[in-house]
């Protein structure tokens, strides 16, 4: 099987070109929603002080913050600034947007990446074990466990893990990026990472397990698998060289679609474990109608989805010759 580098290159180029109008539409949509939002950014800016702030000061603030301008005007200003690399200033955090994002995005990626990575490995192993002997005791146990975990709310599982490992057993810290007051070192962060990442891995495993199991079972039921077995190819080899590549594209597509969760999917886990990621910042930005920060986060999120699906499709095309490349 010869990878089709050229066809895949064309696919990547075409998708990249398409991404530009998609991002434009998404950002226009965001500014439209902000303009239609009933929430008042000046109130959010003032917080509780709104109760002791005169209407004059509120009006002056609205003017300084530029929240009164029309939506077209605000969008144009934003596009011009963004084109020069200036993402604007976050009203909620009183800090440049680029700093708000760079302060937090890395921690979110670390947590979600580790969680999803471990979850993926776990899912592949368990999914394969389950698929090899369909309806065997192992398959039933794995499927039942996956369905059970899938039905548990993530907040609940997080608090349960926090209580068990941090409070009862005392083997993990009860939250934060480092021990309070300690500098950010690899040793500290790793010690604080394993529990929330572990919870996230457990939470992301169920669907991946069920999907891996299903894809593999379908592939194993195909004629060419039976043919290969009949020719005397060892079952292990059949699984790895025949069934797995056939099952991979569907699995990769699913993964690609879940890539945005790297950024936003862990909000609740970040909350339970006091993890300083981008999740809490997104929620605050949305409630406070912090346009600059929202725009940056939305565009980043959209780009992550586009990139994720592109990566998945490209990989799928590379590993499976039957996959078409858009055209």
């Amino acid at each position, binding site marked *: 099987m010869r990878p089709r580098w050229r066809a895949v290159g064309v696919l990547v180029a075409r998708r990249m070109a398409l991404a530009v109008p998609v991002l434009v539409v998404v950002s226009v949509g965001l500014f439209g929603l902000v303009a239609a939002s009933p929430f008042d950014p000046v109130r959010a800016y003032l917080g509780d002080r709104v109760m002791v702030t*005169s209407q004059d000061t509120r009006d002056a*603030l609205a003017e300084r913050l530029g929240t009164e301008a029309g939506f077209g005007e605000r969008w144009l200003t934003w596009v011009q600034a963004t084109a020069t690399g200036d993402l604007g200033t976050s009203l909620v955090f*009183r800090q440049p947007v680029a700093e708000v994002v760079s*302060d937090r995005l890395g921690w979110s990626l670390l947590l979600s990446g580790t969680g999803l990575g471990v979850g993926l490995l776990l899912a592949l192993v368990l999914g394969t074990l389950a698929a090899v002997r369909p309806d065997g005791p192992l398959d039933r146990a794995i499927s039942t466990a996956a369905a059970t975990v899938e039905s548990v709310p993530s907040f609940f599982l997080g608090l349960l893990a926090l209580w068990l490992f941090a409070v009862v057993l005392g083997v993990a*810290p009860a939250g*934060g990026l480092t021990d*309070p007051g300690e500098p950010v070192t690899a040793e500290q962060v790793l010690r604080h990472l394993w529990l929330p990442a572990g919870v996230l891995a457990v939470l992301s495993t169920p669907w991946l397990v069920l999907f891996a199991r299903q894809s593999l079972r379908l592939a194993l039921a195909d004629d060419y698998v039976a043919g290969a077995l009949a020719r005397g190819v060892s079952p292990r080899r059949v699984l790895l060289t025949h069934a797995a590549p056939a099952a991979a594209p569907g699995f990769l597509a699913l993964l690609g679609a879940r890539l945005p969760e790297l950024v936003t999917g862990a909000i609740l886990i970040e909350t339970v474990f006091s993890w300083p990621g981008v999740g809490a910042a997104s929620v605050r930005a949305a409630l406070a109608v912090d346009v600059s920060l929202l725009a940056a986060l939305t565009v980043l999120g959209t780009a992550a989805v586009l990139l994720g699906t592109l990566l998945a499709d490209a990989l799928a095309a590379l590993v499976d010759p039957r996959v078409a490349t858009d055209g």
Partner: protein
Amino acid sequence: MGLGLVLTAALVAGCSATDPDAPTGGSSAAAGGSEGIVIGVGSEPDHLNPVLGYAPDGASRVFDSLLVREADLSLAPSLATSVPEPSDDGLTYTVELRDDVVFHDGEPLTADDVVFTYETVLDPSVASPLAGDLEALAEVVALDDTTVEFRLEQPYVPFPERLTLGVVPEHVLAGTTDWDGVAFNREPVGSGPYRLVSWTAGDSIVLEANADYWDGAPEVTPVTFATTGDDQARAARMSAGELDAAVLPARLAEQFEDVEGLQVQRRATADYRGIMLPQEHPVTGDLAVRQALDLAVDREAMVDGVLAGAGEPAYGPVAPSLADFYEPTAERTHDPAAAEQLLTDAGWVLGEDDVRSRDGVRAELTVMYPAGDTVREQLALAVATDARAVGVDVTVDGLSWEAIEPRMGTDALVMGFGSPYDPDFVSYQLFHSSYAGQGFFNPGSYDNPAVDQALDDGRTAVEGAARQEAYSRLQTELAADPPWLFLTYLEHVYVVSDGWSGSDVEQVEPHDHGFNAGPWWNLQDWSAQG
């Protein structure tokens, strides 16, 4: 299955697991010597810039202010060498500054920095949220390096209360145009007892003692504020021994009541909750209805039920903890029978559905509350129950603030604020007729000449006894003609580990607490006991 069940289990188990030498533990005071402290808070400040509204009432740790507040909230000199007295016409306050104060970057703090700080707050192009606090101030002038003159528009006796704002360095901030994006907001340069070491956004803020502090370096250092937004998670971190102190809701703090080495502290506040009753409403516009509802509400039951005991009844806008100004004779007793009599006498007669009406007007009203604020929601529901018992039909409606604001002139609203520092603060704007209908200032358009007079007297009475009399009169007049149903003062609840001397000095707290207000308001005076 209830989440609460597991959480309760977590807390019970947590208590037995608390151990000062826990392997994951933070610093323990018991070790003696120069000690750090880890304080668990629910949120971090948005910024640490005084001119944008950070810690206007002192206790800012990183900054010094002209005056500071003692435990009893009286003003004391800090950067100023004495508490300034007004000139004879009440229009100027002259402040003498210490000449030995330097910012954390080594530059001296002079009168120019003080002038820069206050002028920036007044600058309309900055639109500081604090501008309203200084509306009485016309200009600030540096007479020499250590003398600043504040000139007022009109006499305003409580003005020195506004001199607790942190002073910022002109040499760092001069020429700033983008105040929301300036690096100073997160890397402040102050002259206070502590300096900022690090701020990991969303995780922690670390301060260390300013070794060169003019008033002596604090003993407790470093100070770490660990941000944990979720109350349950913060309680778990306290149980795990990671925190030396934490802000917690009363119901979660109860679990630590009998834990060795920890104390649960309840602190009085001036933060009250009540129902604003609009004057233009056909039912609440009637004095008899307002008086009757005022007698019908069971404040004690609300403190016990809604607040889990962490509060006290409110009868007016001056907190009982402000002993100098509180008027105990304005307290009322819960008396539903008298309430019914008042309503009947005023012509509100019971109909078939147990709701009163007069001249075809049904005794019904809507009480709005901000959705998501459970204390306000439960207070609204408690008022609805009490009102129904005397024949007034109250509907509660949880809304966003944006939906509430346009309706405040015609529908009742659960409101709250309150300042511990001066009885003029907030009350003037809330109850003086000159502020009628101006946003959150007197939204119900309450207009009572006797109340106006008392508030004006309080602003101009220079002599202490005359001020006390004015505010005593204010409370009596508000009780006779209630603009609000004042319901409860809140208490803030904390868990603090043993072994800190200075942690028991109580100060009445404002609404905002955590990073500044709290048992640690005077942290620079604390020391670890061996």
